[in-house]
């Protein structure tokens, strides 16, 4: 079945350092979505990537979708304490209906 792997599982950074999480799918994806979940909260949608090689930016966040549409990354520049939480990627297989989530990367930011 479709699998979405995400690394690292945890990341501790000093405030101001950069952070990257990576997502890899065992199958080609129609799209990939990224979500953020604050501690004790529910996942909240950040962005969706659809096109091969697509790059999107949201302020300090940069999202990339691989050329083969099987991998993606989220990069945060100059982390802040408000970035704390778990970041999930979620992929939809081509022709499928199921959105499958990676295990998430939990980000800790030390002030």
């Amino acid at each position, binding site marked *: *079945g479709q699998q979405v792997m*995400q690394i690292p*599982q945890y990341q501790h950074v000093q405030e101001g350092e950069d952070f990257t999480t990576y997502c890899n799918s065992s199958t080609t994806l*129609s*799209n990939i*979505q990224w*979500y953020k979940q604050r501690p004790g*909260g*529910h*996942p*909240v*949608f950040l962005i*969706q990537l*659809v096109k091969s090689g697509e790059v999107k930016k949201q302020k300090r966040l940069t999202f990339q979708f691989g050329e083969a549409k099987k991998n993606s990354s989220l990069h945060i520049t100059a982390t802040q304490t408000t970035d704390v939480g778990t970041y*999930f990627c*979620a992929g*939809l297989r081509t022709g499928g*209906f*199921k*959105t*499958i*989530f*990676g*295990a*998430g990367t939990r980000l800790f930011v030390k002030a």
Partner: protein
Amino acid sequence: NAGVTQTPKFRVLKTGQSMTLLCAQDMNHEYMYWYRQDPGMGLRLIHYSVGEGTTAKGEVPDGYNVSRLKKQNFLLGLESAAPSQTSVYFCASSFPGGDVTGELFFGEGSRLTVL
């Protein structure tokens, strides 16, 4: 506009008891999903529905049943609860757009403990 509402938010069950989690959305979304979240394992899809009257199995469907009798509601049932079903359950909905699904809107979660 409430979005996605889950009830109950907390529940403690004894092994073998049954219960139903209710998810309601007021966004007229076609797709609805039930996920469970366990530490270190992310969100795993239990069942999903692409429209009223239709349901399908996700990654971890065993021990659960679902129904989508009305477009706005998606029910998750546990017929005989087991300790392995202790988890946080999230319902989500989305509106499909072309060849891809749209963003998922999540409820606040239901924390279930099975003793």
